[in-house]
């Protein structure tokens, strides 16, 4: 495709359904021959799925389901569900990333986008400038940024206590936020893993996360075996007392 010389469409043009027909030449971007068929097929599949759902609802109506008492969720239901969701999402992303390589944006694309953004910003700024009164008028003098800065400067010069007031107020706000949101540093991963292990086992005191991983692997590969870890000597010593 040649380098485009058309201006980037404005927001109003995007919303105009006939704009594309006016801009594009006939046959410039032909619609694929099976586009309509595929679209209709997708709609039909969606309709079939909706009908299936309705059929399921007739077989097992929601009213019937509501007559059952909801079981008590297990203690780790939320955590395990979230973990499964994360795992599922990660697996899907892996599949996608393994198949696709994201293309780099072309220099032309970047240049076009920046030009369009500049043009839009200029267009938006022009009416505002047009509405501004002449420089030096009373309105401009009271509302303009420069005038506000001058006024603030004059005010602070006139009342030096106000500046310290703002500083103290800011510090107080920072203190409140800090006290509210500050949390102790999270446990390091060595301790997080160790806290999950029974403290009767020696590996629950290892200064490395690896033993907990190996213990879990051993348990996973041979789930009915007794734990292969050694007893923690201090626990065994103190448990006799």
């Amino acid at each position: 495709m040649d380098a485009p010389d058309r201006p980037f469409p404005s927001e109003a043009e995007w919303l105009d359904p006939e704009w594309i027909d006016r801009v594009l030449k006939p046959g410039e971007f032909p619609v694929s021959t099976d586009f309509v068929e595929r679209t209709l097929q997708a709609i039909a599949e969606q309709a079939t799925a909706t009908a299936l759902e309705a059929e399921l609802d007739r077989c097992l109506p929601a009213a019937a389901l509501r007559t059952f008492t909801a079981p008590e969720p297990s203690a780790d239901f939320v955590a395990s569900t979230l973990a499964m969701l994360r795992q599922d999402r990660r697996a899907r992303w892996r599949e996608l990333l393994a198949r696709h390589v994201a293309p780099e944006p072309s220099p032309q694309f970047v240049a076009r986008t920046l030009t369009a953004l500049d043009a839009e910003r200029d267009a938006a700024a022009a009416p505002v400038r047009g509405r501004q009164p002449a420089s030096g008028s009373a309105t401009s003098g009271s509302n303009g940024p420069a005038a506000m800065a001058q006024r603030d400067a004059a005010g602070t010069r006139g009342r030096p206590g106000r500046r310290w007031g703002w500083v103290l107020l800011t510090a107080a706000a920072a203190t409140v936020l800090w006290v509210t949101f500050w949390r102790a540093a999270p446990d390091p991963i060595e301790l997080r893993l160790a806290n999950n292990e029974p403290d009767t086992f020696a590996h629950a005191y290892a200064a490395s996360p690896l033993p907990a991983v190996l213990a879990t692997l051993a348990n996973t590969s041979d789930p009915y075996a007794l734990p292969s870890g050694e007893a923690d000597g201090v626990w065994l010593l103190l448990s006799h007392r």
Partner: protein
Amino acid sequence: MNGNASPTMHLREPASACVRHFVLAVLSWLGIASAGASLGAQTGDGKELGTGPSRPASADAIRAVLKRLDDYFDRADLAGYLAMFDADHPGAQAMLQRQLQQLFGARPPFRRKSTLVTEPRLVGPRTVVRVRHELHLAGAPGAVGPAAAPKTLVLDTMLALRSDPKGLVPTFAVEMPAQTACVRGDLFHCQACNYEIGAVPGWLCVPLRSDRAESFEAASFYLLGTDMACDVTVHIDADAPDALSVARVLGETLHELDATAQPGLPTPWLPPAHRGHTPKGLAGASVEIDLPADAVAIGGARAVFHVVAFGGLQHLLLVRGSRRAWQQHADDVHSLLASYRLLESDCDLALAAARPLLHHTGGSLQGSTYHNKTFALDLQGPATWKAQLRCGGAAFRVVWVSPDGSHLWLTGYAVPDGVTQWCRESADRWLHELCTRAGLDVRPAPDPASGATTANGEWCERAGCGGQTRFVVGTPHEPSGPDAPRQRFMRLLVDDDLLVVADGHATTDADLQALRQALDSLRRP
């Protein structure tokens, strides 16, 4: 102390860190972000490896520090003890805190005396010394039997200290075994496990106790003055899975244990020493794990599992640290990984996997019979069952599996560090703990030889078996699946130096007969 209770602990931040956070918050609020960032950079958790001292601190100065630490220990003053440290490594410091909390729970309390085992030496910017702590425990008041006797517990640690103008500041204390056969200086070299790594400037090698490591051999390397560490361990898997699969499983297991750990895709990786001429049978992989919940104040942390598979022999290297330390010390990490190499690359793969097991556990299989020369132990497994040696935290483990899915496990538990020998009481206590973890109820069972149950299922001596023995039957609280064994037959054998647990289940009558015969054949001649 109730072993089942796991006290909730939080890593305590020193007061200086709280003040620092507050100042940073105020500066950020006032918009002086650059000043805050600058302050954070100077005092943040990711430390700098500046120009270190030219000489190690003196032994006398270190003894004075140890004396103060012992005083805090004797007073069970956890806060005071930890406040003496300016921790290099948050994880190591947290585990020190966990161990101290356990020791401080003793009643009557331990009293400690610490001595230097080695001369002080410099590693990077720190003075390093090996310390032996002797912990004395008086007999329990009013107690009778073993509890009435005073005990002495010996713990060794590797201690690192920083020389400040105001004095020595401990920055790091990690437990290590009393015996360190495979460590020469900061080089970890094991001929049986067929590898070496280390002797890289700045990296301190701290071997791990095998019971702590869940492996017969492991060590951690710490880049002193930073929060970078590299854990090295040996794993044997007779199925010899490919390195990519091992890396993927390791990453997923870490995520399973800690949901914040986010593993990426495993990728092929080879140790730098073997990239040009890769030995036949050697394969490697690595997987990066994002740890956003660690080192939060300085942008999170990351860990990378490196797997080197040489048949069934696996060398696992876990490098971990804050993202900032990874950036600042990438060359140091590369140097450490480059120091790893196989000692013998032209050897039979099956032999390469069997040799570490024989060397470290003393056991080997001759047909279906297991013989352990270190512990002088034999068990004749069922002839038609498939036998396999395993590695783990225990002194040894062997598994026999029948074609019909019956199992026999033989596990040897060495005397745990901290107690002087096994006895019937400690064996019963540990068996109870093991069965509780496995969801089993235990009741006495008849001796297959005599057909009679000993009085109350107590321990008894059998001629020619060595030690004392006991038979029990385990039944699950609730079956965990259709294939889960419904009844476990166990035989225990205890002697001063070893507790052996042989247990199994059978799916057919023929397997049950074979299992009983195998249990009966356990002996320490």
